[in-house]
């Protein structure tokens, strides 16, 4: 196999992906963890008593914390809203919360839920002088119709 035949697809894939410069399936810049900003978000659910509602025990398998995080970032990118470092505008957070909640409850049988209110929180982690701190911000609250 010649050097050209061994590497032409490598070169093609790299050059085209770099020229496109954004996600255009199947071309990608593979940007995962390309920087380490001083924040990270994880999304959790609680009931009216403040107890954790695990995704896997209550929702279909494609609904999970990772998926919600992806959708949160997609929402902010799509609308060109500023995001990150726990400083998003509360109006945008509520807007995102409403949309994420709607996606979460889509196609779910709410009759089998054993809670009356579902609260979506964004947990904001950051590093403060080598100590990990976090706070939970309420994004959206939804009454459940049984």
């Amino acid at each position: 196999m010649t050097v050209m035949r061994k590497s032409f697809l490598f070169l093609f894939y790299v050059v085209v992906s770099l020229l496109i410069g954004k996600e255009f399936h199947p071309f990608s810049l593979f940007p995962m963890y390309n920087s380490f900003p001083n924040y990270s978000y994880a999304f959790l659910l609680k009931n009216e008593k403040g107890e954790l509602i695990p995704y896997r025990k209550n929702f279909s398998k494609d609904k999970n914390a990772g998926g919600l995080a992806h959708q949160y970032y997609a929402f902010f990118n799509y609308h060109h809203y500023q995001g990150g470092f726990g400083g998003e505008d509360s109006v945008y957070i509520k807007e995102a919360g409403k949309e994420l909640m709607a996606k979460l409850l889509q196609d779910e049988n709410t009759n089998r839920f054993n809670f009356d209110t579902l609260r979506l929180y964004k947990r904001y982690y950051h590093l403060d002088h080598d100590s990990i701190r976090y706070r939970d911000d309420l994004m959206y609250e939804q009454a459940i119709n049984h």
Partner: protein
Amino acid sequence: MSRLLTINTYSDTEWRFIKIPVAFFWLASIRSANINHELVPYPVGIFTFINGSFLASAHTVMVFFVCAIVLALLYIFEKWMTATTFFMFALSLVLFTLEESSGIFNRHSLYTAIFLSQAFAYYRNKPALSEERIQFPVQLIAGGYFLAAISKIRQSGFGWFTEAPLASIQMIKGYSYAYFNTGDVKQFEKGMKHANFILEHKLLAQSLLAVSLFLELFAWVSLKNKTTAFIYGLLLTAMHIGIWYFMNILIGSIFYPMIIFMVNPLYLMYAGLQRLVGLLKP
């Protein structure tokens, strides 16, 4: 093993032990694709040009999945491979772009590109087909890792690895997902333990990140021959295991094609068993 490392061609048996897990993981990825069935909320890729809503309904996606099962079987049984791999590419393109247009980036790009490269290899139908149907995908996989390195350097500079203490924030995120998904608080405690370990051992963390950046940046070395692909595959496997241990993150859509095409673990087990049986024979 010595034969594997010295002969620079791929046997039909090796190919068989590649295509079976590829078909399996591809099907699993398609089955678990997280697609919004009502609309395409954040269109990307081909759906920035055409409205993909008509393809996103639950019924259509189910039909696509049935087609994927048929294609996977044709792929395993080596039937009409130019058309089969091309349609696997087309199906991947539509379904995974729909998933990405739902805001979920599970990084399935390599599967889609791999099937197109194999369609090209089968279309050429040269005597080197047995090598090209494996080496072409290796080129794309190496390209993916190289792009990941370029992305890090462009975003954070060569000093990306010096930000290691801040990686602890990302580590705790991965374990938080596990806690919030399952309700098992031990996952969160484990994440905190790992994150604090990184904060207490900054130099070690920086060294590990520097090694991983180096591995990604020089992924093209794997293209030299089958031996370099195999050794590089082992190094990348070690890197993924490290990421999985510390961060509870395994990007399967990148890891599985890499280990299958570069290391071929099923074939290694088969060859090892054959050798063992040979030794035990009187």
